[in-house]
């Protein structure tokens, strides 16, 4: 349902706007006027008197980081929060808004209530409905104190006079009011409250995972009109990427230790196991890496406690599959020819020429360069992330350290299909067969 986007810039863009189209039809049959009205109400929190404004702003900065606002609301690094990032959908193109204090192009003239409404209710200035590319569906859980702090912080963002391009949504998808009907079906406004009987750490983790970090926007499956479905955090599709199951089952994080999970959230890499690419790399780079360690430990504690999804015995663990490649010597003895224009180019010839330099001829990795066998992407049941990495590479910068893999989009669909199938067979889930058509779809 979702369309590919050329870049891998942000997470939320990949959520398509099937919502509104389907919702218009469905909602017409519902006639739920009163419900819509109720949802349109904005629960404006009341500021506590005598707050230290510097401390409030600092807290707001932390909330903005944890909510990763910058990832979607920035298209040029030199213009943070000035919006303009494109979100391709089957119905046209959306652009993120300028949320600097610019009075014309930004949110300088928004009232506090209008900012709160945008964040927690999907209702912007003058009652204008937001598309749920903005994850108000998750942010609605944001506490009053955090929301007020966020507003205070956003008020300090210096105005940038930059107008994002106009959306190019066609009728009826340009009818923003229709989102009200989608909300009836898919959106429950309300704060996330602590769960009695759970530790403070668990509750902090739950709040970060479900509300601020909005993990579910990608990792929770969606229903046919793109609302949240079940199981919670059981894995979701973003067309060009798969957001894996992050519950504690075999297909999720069952084979991960707590320190590994912590390291992954902090750096995006656990040697031999997983390496964040695409939208997850951005989440680590822009947000997770900047969280206090205690917050990351809290997220781990919460994730660890999520109900296991699926039937564990039926799902192979994503990690620990496959083995080292030992065919190089035999391959060399066969005098292989590399014809870049041939769709019949052999998988091992391609592997040796394009992969082995960094990942070693055995696939065991070298230094920072990931080990292939045992890696969770190669142990997956769907080829999405492997093919996407081959097409787009990896870009991740954490603590000043850049991790970069070039894309190999110069290889043809057929060549990449052959190579991917070999990589799965040798280093991971040997059941996965990749076709040229699948590569073409992900390209």
């Amino acid at each position, binding site marked *: 349902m979702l369309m590919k986007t050329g870049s891998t810039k942000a997470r939320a863009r990949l959520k398509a706007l099937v919502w509104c189209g389907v919702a218009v039809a469905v909602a017409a049959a519902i006639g739920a006027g009163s419900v819509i009205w109720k949802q349109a109400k904005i629960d404006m929190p009341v500021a506590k008197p005598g707050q230290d404004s510097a401390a409030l702003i600092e807290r707001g900065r932390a909330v903005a980081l944890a909510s990763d606002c910058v990832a979607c609301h920035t298209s040029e690094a030199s213009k943070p929060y000035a919006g303009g990032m494109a979100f391709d959908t089957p119905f046209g193109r959306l652009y993120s808004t300028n949320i600097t204090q610019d009075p014309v192009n930004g949110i300088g003239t928004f009232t506090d209530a209008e900012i709160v409404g945008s964040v927690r209710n999907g209702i912007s200035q003058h009652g204008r409905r937001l598309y749920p590319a903005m994850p108000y569906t998750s942010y609605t859980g944001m506490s009053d104190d955090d929301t007020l702090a966020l507003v205070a912080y956003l008020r300090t963002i210096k105005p940038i006079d930059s107008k994002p391009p106009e959306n190019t949504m066609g009728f009826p998808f340009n009818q923003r009011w229709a989102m009200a009907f989608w909300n009836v079906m898919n959106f429950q406004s309300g704060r996330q409250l602590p769960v009695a009987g759970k530790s403070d750490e668990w509750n902090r983790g739950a709040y970060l995972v479900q509300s601020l970090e909005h993990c579910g926007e990608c990792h929770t499956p969606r229903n046919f009109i793109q609302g949240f479905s079940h199981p919670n955090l059981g894995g979701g599709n973003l067309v060009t990427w798969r957001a894996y199951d992050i519950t504690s089952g075999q297909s999720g994080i069952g084979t991960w230790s707590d320190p590994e999970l912590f390291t992954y959230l902090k750096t995006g890499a656990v040697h031999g196991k997983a390496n964040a690419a695409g939208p997850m790399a951005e989440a680590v780079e822009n947000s997770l890496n900047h969280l206090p360690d205690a917050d990351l430990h809290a997220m781990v504690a919460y994730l660890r406690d999520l109900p296991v999804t699926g039937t564990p015995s039926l799902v192979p663990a994503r990690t620990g599959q496959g083995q080292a490649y030992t065919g190089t010597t035999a391959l060399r003895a066969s005098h292989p020819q*590399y014809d870049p224009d041939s769709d019949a180019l052999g998988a091992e010839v391609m592997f040796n020429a394009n992969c082995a330099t*960094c990942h070693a001829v055995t696939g065991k990795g070298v230094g920072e360069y990931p080990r292939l066998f045992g890696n969770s992407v190669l142990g997956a049941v769907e080829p999405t992330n492997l093919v996407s990495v081959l097409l787009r590479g990896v*870009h991740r910068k954490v603590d000043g350290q850049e991790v970069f893999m070039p894309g190999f989009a110069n290889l043809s669909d057929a060549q990449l299909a052959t190579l991917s199938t070999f990589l799965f067979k040798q280093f991971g889930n040997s059941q996965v067969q990749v076709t040229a058509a699948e590569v073409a779809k992900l390209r």
Partner: protein
Amino acid sequence: MPDSNSTPLSADVVIIGAGAAGGAAAVKLLRKGLSVLMLEAGAPLDQGMLVSNYRNGAYKNNHMAPYPTMPWAPQPNFVPHDNGYLIQKGPAPYTAQYIRGVGGTTWHWAGQAWRLIPNDFRMQTLYGQSVDWPISYDELEPYYCEAEIEMGVSGGGALAGDYGSPRSMPYPMDVLPLPYGFERLRQRYESVGLELLPGPQARNSTAYDDRPACCGNNNCMPICPIGAQYNGSMSVRRAQGLGLNLISNAVVFKLETGEGNRIVAAHFIDQNKEVHRVTGKHFLLTANAMESVKILLMSKDERNPNGVANATDQVGRRLMDHPASAVEYLADEPLYIGRGPMCPGSINNTRDGAFRSERSALRIDVHNDNPTRYLTEKYLAQGYYGKELNEKIKRDGERFVLLKSMFEMLPDPENRIVLSDQKDAWGIPKMEIHYRFPEYVHRGYDTCRELFADCVKASGGSEVKYSDRGQYTNSQHITGTLSMGSDPHTSVCNKLAQAHDHANLYFGGTGVMPTAALVNSTLTGVALSLLAADSIIQASL
């Protein structure tokens, strides 16, 4: 092969030669809105194919081995024996090496991206030797900046600064660190007053231009396997994204002149031996300092009986390179040479001084090629085997040092390329090369030998082997054949890189350099090509 129905054989600018110089110029011209058609004699080259050819090939020490030779675009090759493409007329050999294919010779180089220093442009005025350039360092400086951005150059830093070449912009990337052994040699050479610095390299020290940082595979030559090192195909690909019309396997054999002696067309023969004609408003020749000469000399007509741009018989003269001498030895401590890129640092404080009126200046490269293969072959030939062989390779491999010094050739009009009567498989004449070394270089060698001895002593060297006086190897920095100058009787093009004889013919690349100076020539060749592109842009306004 072009399909003349679908490929327009005409453009604002026709560029001949799809290497670094042509590619960078194409990017610049296309960004200014000019249409560009590029002709390349060789075939498209693919990194995966080249890595595969190298990894699976037998001749690991022959940098040309992975590069397929098309019968219509022969290229010089001397391993396992001279393939006879270049005809040596002596007295000294000129064993040039270059690649004909999309991307050109930068597919296999060590990526050293030095600028000249200001005094290099004023050799005649300052030292009474060689010639002055018609432009100053300051005039070329903006183009150096552009070239460094296009190619992705890392360099500078606290230790190296600007290497004596003043800069208006910082290096695009931080300098790559010296490998361990180089750091040790740097410390030890200090005692004899020699400064070993981490060099400027067209090699990523961080992700740049959607290419990864160098991870030290140590086979920059014959092929960087990960694209961390720049090659010309990267600029050509960028230009294609901007609308470049590239025709490969198109061997240009004639430039056609018209009214006012303007160039009106380039004629090329394709892999099926069919002939095509390409027209344009401006022509930029960036087909390497030797192949470009061949095209000009072949283009004889009534107006230009000596060939195009050759009214004063200057095309192909003043052929230069950097003759190199070498010393190898074993240091008294393990250095583990062979980690990191192949030429990460060199001795740079021997490049300039009053002595240039008497002898060639020099610049000493510390080579970082992994010595294991070389030592293994050497010791096998000496009869070592078994455990003793292994131990000797291990011990000596850790301590092996190879230094190479470049000398500055003088622009001697008798060092030249002329057309041969012999033809290649597509009926195109081969080249004859006349080449000799001046005393100026030999006297440079004498000083170099003393400095080499200082280096050996400073690092406790043993088993020392010097190359001989007069026996110099090519550095593959082909320069001078299309010299830039103000006098048509001693040069081929003017300070705009425009042919003296033809208003719409321009040159780029290393052939335009009127002096070879002391540094690897690619960056200067690309900068000159960008200068030529600017001249074309000005002429198009």
